[in-house]
C-alpha cells in the first residue's frame, strides 16, 4: 500500500500553495489528490482579481501579504511562462451616503495596515475610467496595487514548482473515505487507491464540508453557484477592476483583452450546481449597461459558474481541528485564489508546529463557537 507523510485533498490553488510551501520547508512524501482533471474546480472559474480593499482587519492582512508574494511569484517559483500580474487597481463605487460612510471607515482601516487606498470624488474616479456612467455612483475608493492574475497560469506555476520539489499529484482520484484509528487519521481511500497517512489537509474548495464529514467534523460552510461571463477580446478600455457591492457587479479587462464580469445571485441555493442561467446573463447585461455602457457594446462569448465556499463571517478557515492530523483550508467565501500565497504559508506553520503569526489565530474554526463575537466581512460581491 502507498504511504504518504501528508495527503492534501484538492489540487486547486489552495492545495497547490500548501503543497509547495510544505515541500519548500523540507517535507517529503507529499501527495495531492484531485477528483478531476487539472483545475476543474473553483480556481479556474474565479474572477481573476486580487484586491486588498476589505472591511475587516484580517482580510486586509491576508490580501496584502498575498499581493507581496504575487509581485515576485514568477521569479520565486522560477516559472517559464508569465502569471500575468497586472496592477491596474480596483475602483470600488459607492452609490449612497451610507456606503460613503462605510468606505471612509474601510479606507482608514486599510491605510492603517499599509494598504494605499484613496477615497476619490466622482471627478477623480472619472479620470481613471472616463466612460463610467457618472449617474451610476457617488464616490469611489481606489487602490492602485490591486489588480489581476491569470488563475490558470498562477496555478501551473505552483504546480510545476511543487513537482520539482518532489510533490506527487494524482488526478482523477476522488476521495471516498478517511479512516480513523483511535481518533487519529490512518488512511485515505479514493476510488482508485488507498494511502496510509497520519495527516490530511482539507483543501477541497466547494466540497470541503463533505471531506470534513468523513472524519466527523461539521465545518460551518456551505457552497453556492456564482456566475461569470467573458467577452471577446476588446481594445484596451478598462485599466482597473470596477466593482460595486450595492449594484452587485465586478468587471475587469484582463491583459489578454477579454473582459470578465460577475455578480452574485441572492437566491442561489446551497448546493454544488455550477450551471449557467439566462437570468444571470440578463441581469449582468443590464447592470454593466448601466454602469459601463462602453463595455456593454462588447460581445459576450461564454458564461460559466463556480462555487463560493462560504463561512458565517466571509473570512476563511485556516486551522487544525479536534481530529489529530486533520487540517482545514476552506471557506474563502469567493476569495481563495487571491489569498492562496498566505494560505500556504500559514497552514505550513500550523502543520509543522511553528510559531504562528499573531493575526492567524483568528482564522481558527473555533471562532464560530461564539457567533456573537465574529467580525463579519461586508465587502463581498
Amino acid at each position, binding site marked *: 500500500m502507498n504511504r504518504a507523510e501528508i495527503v492534501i485533498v484538492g489540487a486547486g490553488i489552495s492545495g497547490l500553495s500548501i503543497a509547495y510551501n510544505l515541500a519548500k520547508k523540507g517535507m517529503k512524501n507529499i501527495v495531492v489528490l484531485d477528483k478531476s*482533471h*487539472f*483545475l*476543474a474546480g473553483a480556481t*479556474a472559474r474565479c474572477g481573476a482579481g486580487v484586491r486588498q480593499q476589505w472591511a475587516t482587519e484580517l482580510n486586509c492582512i491576508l490580501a496584502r501579504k498575498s499581493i507581496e508574494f504575487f509581485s515576485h511569484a514568477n521569479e520565486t517559483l522560477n516559472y517559464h511562462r508569465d502569471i500575468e500580474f497586472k496592477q491596474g487597481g480596483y475602483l470600488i463605487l459607492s452609490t449612497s451616503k451610507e456606503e460613503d460612510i462605510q468606505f471612509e471607515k474601510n479606507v482608514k482601516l486599510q491605510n492603517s495596515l499599509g494598504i494605499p487606498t484613496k477615497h476619490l470624488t466622482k471627478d477623480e474616479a472619472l479620470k481613471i475610467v472616463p466612460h463610467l456612467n457618472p449617474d451610476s455612483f457617488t464616490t469611489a475608493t481606489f487602490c492602485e496595487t490591486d489588480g489581476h492574475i491569470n488563475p*490558470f*497560469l498562477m496555478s*501551473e506555476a505552483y504546480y510545476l514548482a511543487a513537482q520539482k520539489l518532489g510533490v506527487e499529484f494524482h488526478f482523477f482520484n476522488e476521495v471516498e473515505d478517511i479512516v480513523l484509528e483511535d481518533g487519529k487519521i490512518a488512511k485515505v481511500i479514493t476510488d482508485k487507491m488507498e494511502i496510509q497517512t497520519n495527516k490530511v489537509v482539507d483543501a477541497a474548495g466547494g466540497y470541503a464540508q463533505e471531506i470534513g464529514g468523513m472524519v466527523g467534523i461539521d465545518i460551518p460552510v456551505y457552497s453556492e453557484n456564482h456566475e461569470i461571463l467573458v*467577452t*471577446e*477580446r476588446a481594445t484596451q478600455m478598462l485599466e482597473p477592476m470596477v466593482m460595486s457591492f450595492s449594484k452587485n457587479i465586478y468587471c475587469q479587462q484582463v491583459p*489578454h483583452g477579454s473582459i470578465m464580469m460577475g455578480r452574485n445571485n441572492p437566491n442561489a441555493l446551497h448546493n454544488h450546481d455550477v450551471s*449557467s442561467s439566462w437570468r444571470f*446573463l*440578463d441581469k*449582468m*447585461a*443590464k447592470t*454593466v*449597461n*448601466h454602469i459601463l*455602457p462602453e*463595455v*456593454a*457594446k*462588447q*460581445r*459576450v*462569448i*461564454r*458564461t*460559466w459558474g463556480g462555487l463560493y465556499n462560504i463561512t458565517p463571517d466571509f473570512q476563511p478557515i485556516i486551522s487544525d481541528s479536534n481530529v489529530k492530523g486533520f487540517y482545514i483550508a476552506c471557506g474563502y467565501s469567493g476569495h481563495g485564489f487571491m489569498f492562496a500565497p498566505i494560505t500556504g504559508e500559514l497552514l505550513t506553520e500550523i502543520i509543522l508546529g511553528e510559531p504562528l503569526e499573531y493575526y492567524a489565530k483568528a482564522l481558527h474554526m473555533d471562532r464560530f463557537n461564539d457567533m456573537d463575537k465574529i467580525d463579519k466581512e461586508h465587502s463581498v460581491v
Partner: protein
Amino acid sequence: MSKRDIIICRCEDVSLADIHEALDMGYRDFESIKRILRVGMGPCQGQSCAHLVKNEIARYNKVNPETVKIHKTRPLISGVVLKDIAESDEDE
C-alpha cells in the same frame, strides 16, 4: 512544414507545436490543455480546433479519438452584444 507554423486554434493563435509541448508536459486531456493554452476559449468557442486537438490527444495517448472528451460547450453559441440583451426585455 514546421509544427510551429501549423495553427490549430486560430482565435488564440495556438500551434501544433504548442499542443505537443503541453502533451509532453503531462496535460493529457482537453480541459487541462485548454487551461494552459486557451484552445477553445476564443470567439469560435472551439468550433474549429476542438476536433483537431481531440485527434492529437488520441494519437498521443494511443486511444480511439471517439473516447477523447472535448471541452464543455458553454452558452452562448455565438457572440451577442451585451447592450442588446440589456435592452431586450425591459419589463422583467
